[in-house]
């Protein structure tokens, strides 16, 4: 393959050079170094084959963080997607004030994480609002952040924060479906549920891909809440990969960090490519 670089092409390339240079310097090139380090000892002087990978998979903290993170994603992403799809469908059905409702659902995006944490502390403290509410029904109070319930608080906060974002995404997909499809189906006697099943759902497949990928990306951001409310070592039910990375970073365990970064990058890559492939097959 021969690439002829005439002057015109060079001007074109100039547009992306600054951005690409930055991305290469801060992420791409050092990631190659991370890849190399994942096969060496901690000082980077000796080649150790897969021993870092074996170490992390035998590491109890890694296994806990890894399985918690997976569990978190498997639970909260479907909840978020189904819930936001329902709301988007309702809002799209010509409800009065739909625009105001949509804005209201987006507000959590603007609330700083640190402020959320203040509310969490008051809500889920042993003598906080949640305990008070349960007390009215004669139930025991406890420090919720220090129980397995902490995990569910994290799920709740993720859904709360991302609901509006996903409603907007779904609505964009919904408005892209031509009305004529529904009109034709209704003329053939289809009811609401049939319309949803045979027109809305198949036409939303491409939106589904984007939403899954973005929901996945945003699920890593709950670390902000988890960390601010509970610090480096939270209740073990919400000990996530993010905590582990932080702790390894502080201990300067660069060998383990490199191996774990490579493992996670690979998993995400496989996931994206898999989703992209099933998405391309749809049309």
């Amino acid at each position, binding site marked *: 393959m021969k690439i002829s670089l005439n002057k015109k092409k060079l001007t074109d390339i100039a547009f992306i050079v600054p951005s690409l240079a930055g991305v290469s310097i*801060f992420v791409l090139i050092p990631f190659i170094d991370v890849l190399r380090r994942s096969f060496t000892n901690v000082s980077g002087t000796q080649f150790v084959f897969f021993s870092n990978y074996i170490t992390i998979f035998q590491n109890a903290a890694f296994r806990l963080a890894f399985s918690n993170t997976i569990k978190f994603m498997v639970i909260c992403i479907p909840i978020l997607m189904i819930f936001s799809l329902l709301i988007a469908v309702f809002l799209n059905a010509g409800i009065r004030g739909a625009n105001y409702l949509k804005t209201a659902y987006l507000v*959590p995006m603007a609330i700083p994480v*640190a402020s959320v944490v*203040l509310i969490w502390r008051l809500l889920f403290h042993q003598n906080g609002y949640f305990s008070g509410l349960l007390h009215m029904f004669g139930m025991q109070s406890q420090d919720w952040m220090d129980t397995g319930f902490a995990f569910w608080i994290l799920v709740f906060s993720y859904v709360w924060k991302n609901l509006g974002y996903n409603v907007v995404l779904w*609505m964009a997909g919904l408005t892209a479906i031509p009305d004529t499809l529904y009109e034709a189906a209704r003329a053939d006697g289809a009811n609401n549920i049939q319309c949803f099943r045979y027109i809305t759902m198949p036409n939303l497949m491409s939106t589904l891909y984007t939403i899954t990928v973005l929901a996945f990306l945003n699920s890593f951001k709950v670390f902000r809440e988890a960390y601010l409310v509970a610090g480096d070592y939270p209740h073990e039910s919400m000990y996530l990969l993010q905590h582990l990375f932080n702790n390894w970073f502080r201990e300067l365990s660069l060998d383990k960090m490199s191996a774990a970064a490579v493992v996670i990058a690979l998993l995400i890559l496989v996931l994206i490519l898999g989703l992209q492939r099933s998405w391309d097959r749809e049309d």
Partner: protein
Amino acid sequence: MKHKIFKRILLLLLLVLAVIICFPVVFLIVGSLMGTDELNHYLGAVLGKADGFASWALLPTYPTFKAYVQLLLDSPEFFVMFWNSVKMTGAILLGQIVTGVPAAWGFARLDIPGKKVLFNLYIILMLMPFQVTMLSNYLTLDAMHLVDTQWAVILPAAFSTFPVFIMYHFFRSIPKGIIESAELDGANKFQVFLSIGVPLGSSGIVSALVLSFLDAWNLIEQPLTFLKSKTLWPLSLYLPNISMDNAGLAFVASVITLVPSLLVFLAGQNYLEQGIAASAVKE
């Protein structure tokens, strides 16, 4: 008839949900206007100063700006962190405009060899969580002796590929005819970009900036990892360091952190929605 009742109930449910979702904002504002005694009265149970459970009032009984005065006049470190946040957020957004806008234009509109592969790489990078790139970032920053300077937070974020992705979709939707006619008139690549691309894609640029602002204003992991000196910390790390004994200060600091992002959110709401929606529709 039945249909109408169903719609009413649905609207009511959606309204209740909106109120619950937005309640934290009201809660923070009300709390920030309460005096110390009133806060101690309601939150005493959580603060360990009283028995029973925390309670709350819809409005402060004796509204006061005392806590605001205390924070704004007697807390110099708050000003430093506020200013740090403004500086870092501003620099990040500026960097994203300078490098990101031309790059998005290049990917969307110019003839660059291998751009499909490169753009896919950008999408993959945009989906990688901070934990995957954190070690890469660190290695570069360390080599450049930038760790523990604000550049360590600014530079990697300025080259984020997410805004490029958002703006790309807006530049793609500019009709080809407009660009071709400008080229026929003898405009060169840079003139076309500046006089057609930037103005017609401006809503895309603004929506990318709104999304980036909300993210940059809330950075937690990056400053926590790369900044050791507390005098360099942004506002997002101030709140978690206020102990609950100073509940009044915590409320005010929350509100002040919230105001800029709420203003940007309200002013840029349409752009925000467009920006979110842009990624949902497959080209």
